[in-house]
């Protein structure tokens, strides 16, 4: 609803940043 508490907002932003790093670092599937 747009009213995300401060701590959760920071945690969520960090989670998304790290998820992007993990996905970028992942070895692509070799077909």
């Amino acid at each position, binding site marked *: 609803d*747009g009213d*995300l*508490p401060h*701590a*959760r*907002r*920071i*945690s*969520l*932003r*960090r*989670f*998304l940043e*790290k*998820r*992007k790093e*993990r*996905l*970028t670092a*992942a*070895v692509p*599937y070799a077909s």
Partner: protein
Amino acid sequence: PTTAVAATPPPMYFNQETLQQRFQALIEGAKEKWTYAIFWQSSVDEASGASLLGWGDGYYKGCEEDRQKRTLGNAASAAEQEHRKRVLRELNSLVAGGGSSSPDEVVEEEVTDTEWFFLVSMTQSFVNGAGIPGQALFSGSPIWIAGGDRLQVSACERARQAEVFGLRTMVCVPVGGGVVELGSTDLIFQSNEIMNKIRFLFSFNATEME
């Protein structure tokens, strides 16, 4: 037994940067493969007087299953995946300030079970000693559950949910101002070394709080 309660802000705010450093030292420096760590912060609901454990901060490291599921495609059902991605898209736009950036892989790739469990944790809270984190705080003693079978039969809904999402070990250790929870998809047995490390890293003092 998790309940969403509208609580007044807790009396103390922990510095999330130092929390992250502690999580990093705990998880990245461990011999064991922990999938995530969460700091549940204790507070008191002013309206009801109930003691409350709510989200303080967390650290998601991930696990081998994340990589395998994304590679082999044996993740949750298509409908469940679509639901998770939709939620992640909404959350992403929320923390990005409603920006109109084009969708990228951060919200379009599969959301694994353990990622989802961690995300859902952000919405949870524990009232008056409920749940594994609440019991650890209430008793002042650590709770260590090793084994999917033990998680499955727990009275705590969160522990049972953890097992469904592939976690095999859940640990809750009371520390100053709250509870540190660790979870792993590996079977990790109780050790004093880990317990002492948690207590040492999370022994807060007033100067470390914002």
